[in-house]
Structures are given as C-alpha cells and as structure tokens.
C-alpha cells in the first residue's frame, strides 16, 4: 500500500526513523535481580525489596539508535524452578533474551548457563542473548569472576556485561547493546513478529514513542 514508506514523514517534514518492536525475555534464578533490572531500565527506579514476580510481568521501553527507534516488549519471568514450565511461553518468539545471574552467587551463574543452553536449543535460532552479571554493587562479595563469565559468553556468542540495578551501572547499556545487535532491515519486518522484529505501523504509537525517547 502506498502509505508504507520506510521512513514516515512527520508533520513538520523531518524524517522520523523507522520503528522496530522486539520481544525480549528475562530469565535467571530467583532473586538475581531480573525485575530490578527491568524497573531500572523502564522507570529508572530501584526498590530495595522488589516484590517477587509471581508468574510474569510485562513492560515496554523504547531506545533510540541513530535513525531507528527500538521498542522493547519486555517479559520479566518468575525465577523459581516451579515456574520453569511457563517460561517457553515467554521466550517463544522472543528476538532477545537477557539471562541474569548474581555475581555474589556461583549457583546462579550455573543456572544462567542452563538457561542459555535451553534458549539455544528451544528458542528462535536467531535470538540475541545477553548475559548480565547483576549486583555489581556487591563487588566485595563477588563469587563469580568477571573473566570466567566473559570467557563463557565469548564461547557462546553472548553479549556480556556486569550490571547493577541498584546503581544503574550498565543497565541502559546492556539493552542498548542488544538493540544494536538486533536485525532491523526491512526484510525481517515480517508480519506477526514470528522470530523477527515487527515494524510498527500505528502512527500514533510511533509518534508517541519517538517523542519519549532520544532525550
């Protein structure tokens, strides 16, 4: 149809970049800070006693990359093993995942590895996976060495950063790094979002998100 142009003209004539929407899922052991990372990224807040996620939570946030606005649909999951059976519902069709562990707890790193394995086996083959070593603010209690995690990430082709939802360290950065790595070409913008980013075509949403970011 004629109104499908790569860059929508805004009323003032300036070129607004394309808008891509991606589904991103957060996975990881309970209490490693998944919800806190999302809260920091989406609202810039931190709660010392973030309530535990029962089931899953859903939030969105947009980031701007050059001429592209990337809208993340973020699925934050419950960490307890019992809820594992619901996880496929959330990572199915996801274009990106952040697997979180707690740098003060070696077990959570082990658990992160099994999540990565599961994603590699079961999720969308082109999924962009980032590994986040959270709670960097508790450095003095560190149990997982940076080098160890980095080596693992490299081996498996994952993005990797140590983060702190509390101090906000690397939180925006990890989402931005994912946004950069995600494919945003026209061909991938197929309908239905099955495995690929969706172009937003709703004019109003596009204008709103564009207005909210790039600040």
């Amino acid at each position, binding site marked *: 149809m004629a109104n499908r142009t790569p860059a929508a003209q805004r009323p003032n004539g300036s070129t607004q970049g394309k808008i891509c929407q991606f589904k991103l899922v957060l996975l990881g052991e*309970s*209490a490693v800070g998944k919800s806190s990372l999302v809260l920091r990224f989406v609202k810039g807040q931190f709660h010392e*006693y973030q309530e*535990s*996620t029962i*089931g899953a939570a859903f939030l969105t946030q947009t980031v701007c990359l050059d001429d592209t606005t990337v809208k993340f649909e973020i699925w934050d999951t419950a960490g307890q093993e*019992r809820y*594992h059976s619901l996880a496929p*519902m959330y990572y199915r069709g996801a274009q990106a995942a952040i697997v979180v562990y707690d740098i003060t707890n070696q077990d959570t790193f082990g658990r992160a590895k099994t999540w990565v394995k599961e994603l590699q086996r079961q999720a969308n083959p082109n999924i962009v996976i980032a590994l986040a070593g959270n709670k960097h603010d508790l450095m003095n209690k560190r149990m997982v060495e940076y080098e160890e995690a980095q080596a693992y990430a490299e081996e498996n082709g994952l993005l990797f950063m140590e983060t702190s939802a509390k101090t906000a360290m690397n939180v925006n950065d990890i989402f931005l790094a994912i946004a950069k790595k995600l494919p945003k070409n026209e061909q991938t913008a197929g309908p239905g979002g099955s495995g690929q980013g969706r172009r937003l075509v709703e004019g109003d949403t596009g204008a709103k998100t564009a207005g909210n970011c790039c600040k």
Partner: protein
Amino acid sequence: MNEEDLIKRSAEERDKIFRRYERGREEGAEIDPWEDPSFEVYHATDRYGFIHDKRLSSKMDPQEAKRNQIELERVKKWLKMLKSWSSSVTKEKLHKRIYKGIPNSLRPQVWCKLLNLEKVKNENRGVYAEMNKLARLYSTDARQIDSDVNRQFREHIIYRERYGIKQQSLYNVLTAYAMYNSEVGYCQGMSGLAGVLLMYMDEEDAFWATHALLTDPKYMMHGLYKEGFPKLTRFLAHHDRILQKIMPKLKKHFDKHGLDSILYSLKWFFVCFVERVPFSLCLRIWDIYLLDGERVITAMAITILKLHKRNIIKLRDMDSIVHFIQVKLYKDFMYDDDTVIQTLEKTMDELKRSKLDHPGPPQKDEIPSRPFGILIQPSFEQIVGRRAEKFTDKEKNTNEIITLRSEEAKDAVEKENRESQLSVGDSGGLAGSKFSFDPSIDDASSLLDCQHTGSRRSLADTSVTSTADLSVFSTITRSQAHENSLDTHSNISENSVGAISSVGSGIVQSSSIQKQPLSAHSTPRATPHNPSPDVLRIYVPYSPLDTPIASPQNGDVRKSPPTSFPDGNKIRIRIDNDDFPTPLVEHGQIKHFRIENPDFDLK
C-alpha cells in the same frame, strides 16, 4: 531488695529524670526514635499496618469516620455471634455479615473459626513443632523461602525489620509447611498467602490455615502450587470461557493485543488478589473466600474486569492494559469496597444461575496424593539445589496447554482479521451485564441472556432501542460509503445521521436507530434478544433479483443481489470501537489499513 535500697533506687531514678529535663536536647541526650515526632512511621502507617511513603492525613474523612463507626457497631454483634458460633442463628446471619465485612479487630478469631483451625490443631498436636525440626534438618526450600521472606510485605510494620519476629514466623511456617506437604513444598506465592495469615494469626494457626487453604476441598490451592500448576490451567480455561461468553468484546480486545489471561490473572488465583487490589478490599475478598471458597476467586476475577471494562477497552496496547490491571488497580481501585463486594455478590449469583460459577470437580492430579508430614528423603539434586535441565511430563503437559491457549487466541485474532468487517449475524459486541452503575458501556443483558450470543437476531430487534452511540455514526458512514462505492477516495461526510440516510437513501426503507438515553437503570427489553451497543441494524426490504445497491456518493449504481447476506433483508454493521480502522475494499474483500504516515490524506 530492702527498703533502704528501694528508696535509694527511687531517688536515683528521680534524679536521672530531672537531669534529663534540665539538660534538654543537647548533644548526648538519649532519645529513642519512637519518642520523637520525627518517627514518621507512626504517621505513615495505615490501620492495617502498611507504612506509606507519605504521612497520612491526621484528619479522618467523614466517610471513613462513618465506616469506622459502623464497624464498631458491628463488633458488638460479632462478639455475640462468636459466642454461639455453631448455633442456627449464626449460620443464618453469617453469610450476610461476612459479605458486609468482618470487623478488622475480629478477623483473627473469625478467620480461625471459618478455617476450623481449633479442631485441626487439636487433632495434630505437636505436628507443627515436629515439622519445624524436620525443616531445620532437611529443608531444601530454605534458600528460596529466605529470599522471598526478605521481600514479602516489607512495607508492613510487622515485616519491616530483617529477621524480626514476624519474619521469623513467616520463615518457620513456610519451611515447616514445605516439609509437611512435600508434594507442593514451597512455591512462590505461598509467602504472600502465609504473610497475610500471619498478620492475623500466630505461627501455628497460620501453619494450619495454610494447610486448610491448600487441601480443604473448598479451596484446594494444592493444585495451583504443585508442579505443572494443573489447577491453574483449568481455572484459566474457565475464566476465558466466562469472558468469552459475557464480555466477548473485552476478550477480543485482549486477544487483539496478545494479552493472555494468564498474565494478569495468575496472581489473582495464586494469592487471592494480594497486591493486586488495595489491601482493605483484599481483606474483604479474603473474608468471603474463607466462607465460600474457590468460586469467589472466579467471580472476583470477572468482577474486576466488569467494573473496569470501559477503562480497559480504551487502552490500546498490552503494556497499558497490564499496568492498569496490575498496578493502577492496586493503588486505587476507583470503587469503594462495599460497591465492589456488592458487585461480586451479584456476579456470583449470575454465574451460578448460568452454571458458570464453577469449573467442576478437581482433576485427579490436583488433589494431594502423598500422606502429609512424612519425610521424603530429598534427592541429591534437591539437596544441592541443582536445577533440572529437562521438563518433567507434567511440566511438558502444562507447557503444551499454555502454548495451545495462546495460539488459539492468536488464531482467533487472525481469523477475525480475515473476516469481513461487515459481518452478518455476528453479535461479538454483545456484552452482558446488568450492573446499574455503569449503563453506558453495557446493555441490559444478564449473564443468562448472554446465552443468546451468536444467535441471529430477528427483525423484531430493529424495533427495540439500541444503545448505539451517535458518535460512531461518522465511522459507520465511512465504512458504509466504502462498501457501497468500492471507492476509497470518495468524499466522506463527517455528518452523522444525515449522512447515513443519504448513503442509505433508496435502500433503507425503514431503519430504526434510536439512541438510548443514559440512565441509571437498565431498560426493559421487548424481546429476550439483546442488541449490543455497537451493532446497528438496518431493515432493508428488497426484491431479490432487481434491487439496485446504490452508492449515492458517486452516483454509481451497481446491480448485485445481496447474496452474501443470508438473512436477505438485514444488514448488520458492526463498528469496532477499538481503533476505528477504515475498511478498504479490494477485489471484493474488505481489508484494513492503518495510517502509518500522519500526513497521508484520506481525501
């Protein structure tokens, strides 16, 4: 201590106190935090013990004062009733009184009675202490419970301090219960359940209350929490069924935005609305839940959606819908508790009448199958906390059910999109409710009447009033113009009623479009059928072979017998209120497009 010593001690004490006052607030003065007005927690703690960010108003608003007065009056009646709990008078009055709300000061006693804890405790003396001991030695859930106790109700005055007395209790109850009911162990969500119970009970009572909630057939939360969540999937399916039946438009709205009910309702089911509605309302729901059991949860879920349907329909993306249901309603439900509970009661009645109040008896796997309190030797994996890499059969099953649900919803949306916007005989917009407080979004149909959903309406319908909002007429005009002219660039009149008649002139011989005045009462119907607010019916008599379908806008006259309308002389136009998409006719099929470019000009 002899007299001399006592006198000496008194003198010292007097001296000490006097010196403190003489010294005043100078440096080094020993002042405990609670002695100073700066100890804000007193001013920010509400009557249920929750500490708020801001100081609460010291003035009570008149309504609250009135409520408190009423509650005080009720306390007297309740005290009397508690004395003769098993009498017939109590049985008679209990229902009504509980629906009015148990006085907060008496919740401890009444909840214990409703859960029959005295009896259970007597029959199981020493068991709780034994489970504590077992947990101390063998618990494999300690880590998870610890991390959840550390964040459960931390804004509540009794859970505020780390390792404080109630945190200890919560930890003890959960670890002990995980030993007692080894099939469930500990599942996230249970800390919320036990957390509320412990606000009103001591440890041992809370332990047995948790057990009652999990295993009493009335509540049977066992099936919710155990591996694979068998009860959850069953209740979700039931919830969806009710939604489809009585609020199909809302269901479609959810489907359209990819919102699976599991996202917003899981916590409703798992912790009985804790942290999803304001705490005062939550307690009222708990009162009723303890009395009437699991059908309360089903009905309350529907009640929330009914009360806020109009707000939710306006929200255009999943993000805002979820935020509204999960966050906004927790902060401010927008209806007072009494109104909500009255609506809940009504919903329960209506669901019962249409036999939708209960999804039926539990499946076998929802019921406890292991004896309680027997120590099951944990596996090595459990002990060291190693996680399974593969799903169990039960988990696979859950996974499949859940996936199927979302795929069905997706398929439904796709099918919907494929189908013509001008559907014949579709009454998808029918919304059933007869709650009088919100007549503008609902017609007067009741749940029972909703069984007519999907049935073709008779001509008689055209003579009854429709709640169609005149504001949508311009959209009707637009779609109708496109339909008739097959011309996307036709001029579109923005004037509503006049435009309709001009579009329809020559074909609409007798149309009956009336706007129902918004009144606080439902309108009696001439027929048992209930026209939906957004279905416009136009009576179109025609001669099957030769009536021209005209499009006066561009003067074209097309000859085509209306074979696509099986009912022959009826055209049903359904307006999708969600986003007023403009249908476009291409090769005889109606498609939708959305405006991507704001500058794109329809004219």
